[in-house]
């Protein structure tokens, strides 16, 4: 039985915005599933619907074999949900946060106490357990938030950008917890901007763009679909954002054989071509003849980044989000 089963799911908001336009996908039991897409693609809307926080407009969705609207209450007992922002009660201690979460999940006190002690150790908050969580660092808060979604031993864990805003060390820690949880058989449904980790950990993924699924499969399937190496061209004046240079460059490339795709990118132009390495001399010569100066040229085998770029025309750049929202392990508390 699939852990998540979505068919023709549609969400239209009151103002007429169609956030999700009839998507279908399955997540198998025990799978580590990545749900990717540019900002505004409809990822959070989908997660909110699957976690019973938002009503769908039409279509069907089952979680753990249960209808998310008809059996909402049962679904809530089986899922853990971590939202994009860290959500803990900062007036309560770490332990109290976890206890409250367990109580809301209707757990028995004896069992709950043991479970909370165990979890506090797992997320490395044993020493800070009885301090008010307002005084925790950003990384500690995130770990507490993660622990609070696990108190009732959910079968399926939904995570919306769980590592956004964390410093690299805390981020790696969260990923390693998630990997461990998945190894115990927990199904993980995650949206994230970190494609390297997706490549490493997710068994399958779906890419969402403008409310529609534009690609799905395993990372290796999706990468091999590109079937070509990637050649990145940089131009002398940085990014040839001004139309004419870019257009001219594209024209030059269009006259070359062996290129399967030309895509605009922030760094310049990305070309996909089979056996790309052999094409490099041709490219250099062609640009030389056209008197366009190249500042860099790079050849690499395709990554998930390329898959994402190919299907959405955009590149995920987690670094930018980090700069504006980062709170380090020793980050000051925000109030």
């Amino acid at each position, binding site marked *: 039985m699939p852990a998540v089963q979505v068919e023709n799911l549609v969400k239209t908001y009151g103002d007429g915005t169609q956030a999700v336009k009839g998507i279908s996908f399955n997540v198998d039991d025990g799978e580590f599933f990545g749900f990717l897409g540019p900002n505004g693609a409809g990822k959070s809307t989908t997660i909110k619907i699957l976690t019973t926080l938002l009503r769908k407009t039409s279509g069907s969705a089952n979680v753990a074999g249960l209808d998310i609207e008809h059996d909402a209450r049962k679904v809530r007992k089986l899922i853990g*949900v971590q939202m994009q922002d860290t959500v803990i*009660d900062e007036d*309560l201690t770490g332990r109290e946060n976890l206890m409250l979460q367990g109580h809301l999940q209707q757990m028995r006190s004896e069992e709950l106490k043991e479970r909370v002690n165990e979890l506090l150790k797992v997320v490395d908050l044993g020493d800070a357990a009885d301090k008010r969580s307002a005084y925790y660092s950003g990384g500690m808060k995130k770990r507490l938030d993660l622990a609070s979604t696990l108190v009732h031993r959910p079968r399926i864990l939904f995570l919306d950008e769980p590592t956004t805003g964390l410093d690299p060390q805390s981020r790696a820690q969260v990923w390693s917890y998630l990997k461990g949880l998945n190894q115990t058989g927990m199904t993980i449904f995650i949206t994230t901007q970190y494609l390297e980790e997706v490549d490493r950990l997710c068994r399958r993924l779906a890419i969402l763009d403008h409310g529609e699924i534009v690609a799905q499969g395993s990372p290796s399937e999706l990468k091999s679909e590109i079937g070509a190496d990637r050649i990145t061209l940089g131009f002398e004046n940085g990014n040839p954002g001004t139309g004419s240079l870019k257009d001219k460059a594209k024209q030059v490339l269009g006259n070359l054989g062996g290129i399967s795709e030309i895509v605009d990118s922030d760094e310049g132009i990305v070309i996909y071509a089979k056996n790309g390495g052999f094409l490099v001399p041709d490219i250099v010569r062609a640009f030389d003849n056209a008197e366009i100066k190249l500042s860099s040229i790079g050849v690499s085998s395709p990554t998930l980044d390329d898959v994402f770029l190919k299907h959405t025309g955009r590149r995920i750049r987690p670094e930018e989000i980090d700069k504006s929202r980062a709170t380090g392990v020793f980050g000051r508390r925000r109030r």
Partner: protein
Amino acid sequence: MTLFSDTSHLFVRSLKKLFRNPILLFFSLFQPIIFLLLFTQLFSKFADLPGFLQLTGATSYLAFAASGIVLQNGFSSAFQSGTAMVDDLKSGFLNKMLATPVSRPAILLGRIFSDVFRVIAQSSIILGLAFVLGASADTGIPGYLLMLVIIAFFGIAWSGISLALGLKTKNSEAVFGIAAFLTFPLLFMSTALVPPSFLPGWMGQVSQFNPISITVDGLRTIMLPGFNIGKVLTAFGVIGGIGIVTMGATLYLFRKVVS
């Protein structure tokens, strides 16, 4: 069954939050205590005005104003209820709760019960202080209990205004602003601090229909000599009417947020 245990867990959570922010508690008690200590002194000569003692039955201005000050405290703390709801809405904690099987009404009830607890505790402190200063209820301990019951229901009814506003606007500044906007006109155009016959003509007319006046009359008849059950019942009636409207609006808006 889960409604009961969920409500009690959320009630405890709200109380912990309250006691861990003593500054908030301090400021909400600060004003009524200043009123009790200074304001009543400032206007103590009121009691010397001809007719004051006969009209009100009070022995001092303090004894007269105590009921009004208790009530004023009741509605200023009721107005904080909505801001706490907005906090949970904005921080995402409400959604976090909603993603669990917690009983939905428990989220509201836990909040309301902690407000009631708070308003009873604060009112007891104020009435206790008034007692120390020489203003005691003529009806004794049963009277004090009845006053606390009135204030508790008043607190529920009025917290419904701020809860509904909070759920509607999702903005705590708006709740605070509207609360401040309502507080003083309602208070000053009432008999909370001045007997009706001392108000200028039009104000006297308005104050008769002011729910604050009617509730204060209910308290005052318990506090001062000449207990009149009719006034207590009228107060309950008005509180009930307001409560049905405000709680109805709160429930309606809460259901919209929840679903």
